[in-house]
């Protein structure tokens, strides 16, 4: 029964979006982190989404996907900014520290987008639940 699979689909969407919110929180928390080496600097993280293709062969190639999955978390390749802070205990021999490449504006936009998408999935799940309950009381 396909109404049941809506729970799986919406659930996968909610899981993916909450992971996205998680990376946003991590990025914002580390926006001001510094490091003594360019390799140690924090790089902004972003999850990579992909559609889950259905395993059922019933509908052939025209079958719908079955939700969304997170393939992995990628790190931003943007340039690491370096600042001259000789007084910083983390500074290297030349007095430079390496900050994170997090863009707070990007992260805030990501956060709003993720929370809206999460709400969408919650509404879908609520609607499916109501439909199932109505179907259960069919004929009364």
């Amino acid at each position: 029964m396909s109404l049941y699979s809506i729970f799986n689909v919406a659930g996968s969407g909610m899981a993916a979006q909450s992971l996205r919110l998680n990376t946003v929180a991590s990025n914002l928390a580390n926006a001001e982190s510094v490091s003594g080496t360019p390799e140690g600097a924090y790089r902004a993280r972003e999850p990579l989404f992909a559609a889950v293709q259905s395993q059922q062969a019933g509908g052939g190639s025209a079958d719908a996907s079955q939700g969304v999955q997170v393939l992995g978390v990628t790190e931003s390749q943007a340039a690491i900014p370096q600042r001259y802070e000789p007084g910083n205990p983390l500074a290297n021999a030349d007095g430079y520290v390496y900050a994170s490449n997090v863009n707070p504006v990007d992260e805030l936009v990501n956060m709003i987008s993720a929370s809206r998408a999460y709400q969408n999935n919650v509404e879908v799940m609520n609607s499916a639940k109501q439909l199932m309950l109505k179907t259960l009381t069919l004929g009364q």
Partner: protein
Amino acid sequence: MSPIPQNLFGIHTQALDLWQRRADVLANNLANADTPGYLARDIDFRKALSAAGGSGDGSLPLQAPTAGQIGNGPNAGPGQAALEYRVPTQPSMDGNTVDAQVEQSDFAANTVHYQASLSFITAQIHMLRTAITGGQS
């Protein structure tokens, strides 16, 4: 005395099947609203229902999709309704064609239609019950 017809609920069982499937497809679109390269899908309800209903007078023909199969009526048509790709109203850089507002409104309309089909079936059951009890109770 006439027997209870085979298709007591008419086209509505088929329609219910189709609305369910469409809700599934739309839920998928919403779940993949941020997936790069995902193409939004939808079911052409009119086409699918006319494929299930045949002549359009409410009668349901038996279907036999594979050779040698005896037609099995209820689930042959709408279960295999062809999915089509939605035409995007505005392009996006990552190749995603999901428009969350369109999907939301379609899902809401789909929910109402599903409940309408449920109401029709409920009314049919009430009618039958009235006939059985003779209007008492």
